[in-house]
């Protein structure tokens, strides 16, 4: 399984990766991006199974990256992980086609539930 983790904070990326590795027992191939533009470029190159995307980032924010990724691949599974927990932000990303929203700091139970949902949908 290929997973793309996008956050401008190295620590935030590490936290997501650690949570993923604690949950997923199978082999996973993790790629990292530091902003929305990098995520978009990497998405096109590696076609990951899941993208984890922060919202507040330099160069290209998560809203625009989500829009562009969904434009490129309507079936992309993008999970937003953000501290921007405003209702309007959550509504907006779901409207743009995000698979789900996880608020920071990450709750591993929520992460597990989302991964289970993605697995079910893929079967």
């Amino acid at each position, binding site marked *: 399984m290929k997973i793309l983790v996008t956050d*401008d*904070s*190295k*620590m*935030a990326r*590490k*936290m997501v990766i*650690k949570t993923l590795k604690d949950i997923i027992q199978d082999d996973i191939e993790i790629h990292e991006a530091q902003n929305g533009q990098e995520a978009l470029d990497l998405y096109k190159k590696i076609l990951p199974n899941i993208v984890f995307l922060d*919202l*507040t*980032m*330099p160069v290209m924010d998560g809203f625009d990256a989500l829009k562009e990724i969904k434009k490129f691949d309507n079936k992309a599974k993008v999970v937003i992980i*953000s*501290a*921007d*927990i*405003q*209702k*309007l*932000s959550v509504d907006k990303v779901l409207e743009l086609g995000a698979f789900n929203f996880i608020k*920071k*700091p990450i709750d591993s139970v929520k992460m597990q539930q989302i991964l289970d949902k993605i697995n079910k949908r893929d079967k």
Partner: protein
Amino acid sequence: MKSDITLNEDEKDCLQELMNVAYGSATAAITEILDAFAKLSIPKIQIINADELKSYLSKELNFNVEHIISLQQINGTLCGENMFVIDKQSAKNIAYKFGLEEDEVNDEEIADIVLEITNILSSSTISKLAEDIDTNVSFSAPTIKTISSIDQLKNIFISKYEKVIIISTQLKFEDLDINAELFIFTTDNSILYIKEKLNKILDEF
């Protein structure tokens, strides 16, 4: 000891992320009250000599217009001050958003609203940050001042610093024309405490 009062890139990144999370939930509380959508910015972290603070702030803030400054002392292991800065027009726009009519918006009403915003935004941001770095803080009542030049900032700070860690982030509403900034200044010992805790967090990952 003073030479240790720096943060390396990983420590800065870690503090920035903690601040991002803390400020995110505080902003959500404000936007719920105002029924508005805020554009969050990436927090800035910097350590400077205290005597450079005035020139730093004069670069950061536009003193061509009147600003309202609210200062609140933070007490505890994480000791220092937070400063919420908002230009007068933005403060008026918040007052209108709270339902006040133009003729009702006077300096007293504006001060009251700024104090309320300061309480919600600063207290919840710093309390969350304190919780993340394993400590407790208490706050003194905020004081408020209207200033129109950087010179009026002289002697405004409650604490005296050698070095200050500046954590700043913006409150910006796209459709409301409201801009404000939150600064957190902490003392030398607090910087060392923060540094130690950040390294503990970094070791976990």
